[in-house]
């Protein structure tokens, strides 16, 4: 007769034990059995290999993905004396690199640091640093003049906080996806994430209320927005405030005037004063209320990008608000980044259409990476903007003598331009930086394009 202590545990129980999911009594029974049963000890070793191998395969899913450190808490827990994973075999950490190769899973590529590689890396780091410093010095004066211009606009409209605050350097805010200590130090970023959700709700509410407004027009019910533009603006500004404060149902109740989408979107980002001031200074006038084309980008289009929450932010070196000018009717094409005054900003972008006619802009500016995702088409689109400073990957750096430095930089620019033309994705490091950058909810309004010249 076989007692309970002599019964061989099933594979699930062994995995549960190795995962430290058995209670003390069950663990005692199993451990006592393992002391006597070589066969089960082998099964434990095999299970340990399966766990480690599976973890490695899962971790390989993250290669090239901008995902935060993937080691889960239970793996990070240090092995302690009496730990089942220690007691049952010679391997201390089931997920560690010294795991018994019970499986033939190929190891992930490793990089050995040798003195020669270290010296090469040091040279490359210095070269990259010099290139970035030199590159970043150029837009400083332009940024200063843009900040001055923004301050002037804000001075005419003290109610608008958009441009008064100093520009937030991209990448300085900690990532939302970081670990607990970083999250504790980043209440701003967490709030921004909630604002992103609020912006999405805002866009959804906008679409719904627009439909309601159409129905109201059919029923010949005059909307307040039709006869009172200032009231619309104020109502929409309040809606913007309540969007930040109460991002769900309060929005829908507070935005009856959203039927006039352009006014609502404008006020959501800037409030009445800034909109008026910016309009006075801008070479771009609001587009007439033509029906939005929900289909393709068929003609040159210009979008004014503003913060949805009134906070200051930059896209690469370009501070909000700015203009994106789409010149080419293609599925992936370049876009110019302009100041609200219509001047060329020190950046460019490529864009591509995504599902549901949304648009994805990717910043093209050496030293920065960034994206701008815009939602469903309309006079006003909700969007999320991210950007961060970045460094070039080592594989992109051309090492030359000091005299040939400018030539190598030209080569780099040529490579970047070639990537842009080919629609190649940004380097992994750039993508990681971009997606790790804090999200800034924006509203984007379609505006008329000024004539180039």
């Amino acid at each position, binding site marked *: 007769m076989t007692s309970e202590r002599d019964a061989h545990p099933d594979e*699930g129980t062994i995995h549960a034990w190795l995962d430290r999911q058995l209670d003390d009594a069950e663990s005692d029974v199993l451990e006592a059995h393992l002391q006597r049963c070589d066969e089960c000890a082998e099964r434990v070793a095999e299970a340990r290999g399966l766990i480690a191998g599976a973890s490695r395969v*899962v971790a390989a*899913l*993250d290669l090239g993905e901008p995902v935060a450190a993937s080691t889960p808490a239970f793996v990070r827990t240090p092995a302690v004396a009496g730990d089942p994973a220690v007691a049952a075999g010679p391997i201390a950490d089931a997920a560690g690199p010294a795991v018994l190769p019970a499986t*033939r899973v190929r190891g992930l590529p490793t990089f050995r640091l040798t003195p020669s590689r270290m010296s090469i890396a040091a040279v490359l780091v210095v070269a990259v640093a010099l290139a970035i410093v030199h590159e970043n010095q150029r837009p400083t004066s332009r940024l200063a003049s843009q900040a001055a211009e923004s301050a002037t606009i804000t001075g005419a409209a003290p109610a608008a906080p958009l441009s008064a605050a100093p520009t937030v350097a991209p990448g300085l805010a900690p990532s939302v996806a970081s670990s607990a200590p970083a999250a504790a130090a980043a209440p701003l970023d967490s709030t921004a994430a909630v604002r*992103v*959700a609020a912006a999405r709700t805002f866009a959804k509410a906008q679409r719904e209320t627009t439909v309601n407004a159409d129905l109201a027009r059919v029923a010949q019910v005059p909307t307040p927005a039709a006869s009172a533009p200032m009231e619309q603006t104020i109502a929409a500004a309040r809606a913007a405030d309540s969007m930040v404060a109460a*991002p*769900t149902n309060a929005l829908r109740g507070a935005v009856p005037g959203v039927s006039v989408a352009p006014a609502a979107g404008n006020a959501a980002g800037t409030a009445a004063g800034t909109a008026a001031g910016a309009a006075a200074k801008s070479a771009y006038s609001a587009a007439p209320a033509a029906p939005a084309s929900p289909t393709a980008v068929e003609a040159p289009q210009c979008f004014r990008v503003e913060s949805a929450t009134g906070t200051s932010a930059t896209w690469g070196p370009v501070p909000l608000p700015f203009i994106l000018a789409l010149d080419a009717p293609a599925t992936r094409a370049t876009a110019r980044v302009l100041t609200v005054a219509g001047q060329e900003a020190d950046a460019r972008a490529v864009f591509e259409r995504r599902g549901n006619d949304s648009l994805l802009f990717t910043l093209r500016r050496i030293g920065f990476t960034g994206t701008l995702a815009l939602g469903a088409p309309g006079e006003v689109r909700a969007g999320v903007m991210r950007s961060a400073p970045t460094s070039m990957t080592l594989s992109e750096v051309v090492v030359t003598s000091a005299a040939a430095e400018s030539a190598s930089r030209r080569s780099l620019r040529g490579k970047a331009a070639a990537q842009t033309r080919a629609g190649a994705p940004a380097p992994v490091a750039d993508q990681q930086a971009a997606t790790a950058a804090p999200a800034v909810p924006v509203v984007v309004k379609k505006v008329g394009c000024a004539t180039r010249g």
Partner: protein
Amino acid sequence: MVPPERLTALFAEYHGALVRFLTRRLGDRDAAEEIAQETFMRAMKQETITSERSWLFAVASNLVRDEGRRSQRQQRRLELLREQSESSVEPEPTSMERADERDLARRAIAMLGERDRDALLMREEGLDYDEIARALDLSPGSVGTTLSRARRRLLEAYESLQAEQGARPA
């Protein structure tokens, strides 16, 4: 409704893990971000949430399941990735090797049953057996069996794909 400050705390605590789980599940960071956002939107509308982590992962899994078209796109993307890896004429050793690793891993994980895959990815995010059981509507006693099967099948699939790739002419 879950108060905003609680939602912010939930976001700070679980958003990273949820996006990682969804990215591994879908192979698409953008889609993962979208579903994670939708998950938190739904959390915001809840009156109360018990067992928050398993609730979030369960909702995210359900959203993934509901998005059938996304999985089809993912399949096409994987096929494209495989074709690219086969037809590239300018190999970049490091990135190609990483892409191969990831491609193999994605194809292997795609060969698992849905429940096995979810259980395994949730466990990799640190969910305990009770949380996995709640999220996937399993009995707690069966989670170990589910995980052991998932791990074994994942490695078998990975090895067979690796052997298949090794057998192909370079």
